């Protein structure tokens, strides 16, 4: 019984009626979501909702798709393992974006704060890359083991969605705690894009021995 409920959580078999202003459609034995939104959300992307003093259009008129605008990430967390000074660590994750029902997208990224311990007593600063050349907007190379901090890079997997990254170049994350605006990390116009985000972390010998953490966000927005 419980298994059945998990398999069929939101469907019901029944005689159904679709009531519109001018006609009634009556069917038999059809699976249909029972929420009233099923009578409102169109199956076709081009749809108009009219009401008193307003008219709304759902989706793009020239895209015949009601697919979700979606983003997926391969891992929920990046585990840096045990940290050793002047020994950079690299970890990666994959991001997929499917803007099938829109003409394109942008993915923004930012961190809530620098890597910090639980009491915010100790921080691992964001990197500035070799010779201090990278910022949240400007990438630069990071190859030296005496360059410290946390940074990230983007590598194209499917198509070329990475925004403003050269090979082996890194940026630091925009820091929300310092009220910095988010940065574009991916953009594209294809129906499916995938990129690899590489995290790089290196600590100095004077870094306090602790457990550091933060949260990194990736927000996908459709183009208008």
């Amino acid at each position: 019984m419980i298994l059945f409920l998990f398999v069929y959580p939101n469907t019901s078999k029944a005689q159904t009626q679709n009531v519109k202003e001018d006609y009634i459609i009556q069917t038999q034995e059809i699976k249909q979501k029972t929420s009233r939104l099923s009578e409102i959300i169109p199956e076709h992307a081009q749809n108009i909702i009219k009401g008193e003093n307003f008219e709304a259009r759902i989706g793009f008129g020239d895209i015949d798709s009601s697919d979700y605008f979606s983003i997926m990430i391969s891992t929920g967390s990046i585990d840096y393992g045990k940290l050793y000074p002047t020994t950079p660590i690299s970890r990666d994750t994959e991001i997929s974006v499917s803007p099938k029902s829109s003409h394109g997208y942008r993915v923004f990224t930012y961190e809530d704060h620098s890597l910090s311990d639980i009491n915010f007593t100790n921080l691992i600063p964001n990197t500035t890359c070799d010779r201090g050349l990278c910022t949240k907007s400007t990438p630069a190379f990071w190859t030296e083991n005496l360059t410290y901090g946390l940074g990230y890079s983007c590598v194209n997997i499917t198509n070329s969605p990475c925004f403003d990254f050269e090979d082996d170049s890194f940026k630091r994350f925009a820091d929300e705690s310092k009220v910095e605006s988010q940065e574009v990390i991916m953009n594209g116009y294809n129906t499916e894009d995938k990129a690899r985000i590489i995290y790089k972390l290196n600590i100095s010998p004077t870094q306090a021995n602790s457990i550091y953490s933060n949260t990194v966000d990736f927000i996908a927005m459709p183009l208008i």
Partner: protein
Amino acid sequence: MKKFILFGLLFSIYLSLASTKAIAEEKGLGIYPPIVTIKAISPSKIEIPIRVKNMGNSTLEAQVSLRPFTLDQNGKVKLILHKDYTPENFSILSTSRLLQNDQIVSKLIFSPHQEQDLILEINIEPNQKSKDFYFSVLIESSGNETSQNSYSKQEIGAASNILLSIGDEPIVITSDFQSPLFTTSGGTKFEASLKNTSNHFSTVHPRIIIKNIFGNTIEIIDLKEQNILPNQVISFGPESNEVQANKKYLIGPYNAVLELNTTASTKGSQEISFIVVPVKQTIFTITLIFVIIFIILRVRTRLSGIKANNR
């Protein structure tokens, strides 16, 4: 004793795998529709259905919110920081809300691949001044992944962009449409730019219709639908390959008309003319003509010489 050691070892292996698995779980979010364009006058109560989905294989917690957006210097969307909210941003957020089963909702819990339906309710108060508002319905994951090592938790979000225009003032779109006067037979390139000179956004779906001198339609180039915000300029240029004729044309003059197909008051079109001059064929034809003329002149000269000798 050995059994206890073995059990402890197996249990430790299980725990390490379990924690790794929890961290390694993928997550995904989807939202539909990606955009909603609304034209309204005050007062009005607007309800828009929004559907969200957990695209991943595990349970997911998420937060839903409304976030104003604007355009950056490149004309692309970006979210506005809270510190940069204007009074207008606050006003529309205070009169809009997300509902599920008629209850205000801010947090959702999804089972794997579960869809959930929301209603975006916007209340436009009486005497609301004519104005545009742009904001996103944003769904963001809010996991509780942790680790015994240093880590960065990753969260994702997907947005549905809402363009709301209140008021019924006319919308004016100006266009600039060009192409080279002379072009070769294939891949005629056009440059087109549109500017919204009014105070409300407009939806445009431009297309270029190319006709020959007999009025026959040779090709129709459909450009993608876009929304142009007030004072925004959008361009279609030869570098983006977005406005390039795909067919090869015969030699001769042609007309190209840029139709806007817009919700704007000005539904006009702009027409230009261009001449197709196939380079290779032209050079060959001209050379051939010169050769023929040369041959004719030489023959006449010879014939004149023969007649003079015969006298």
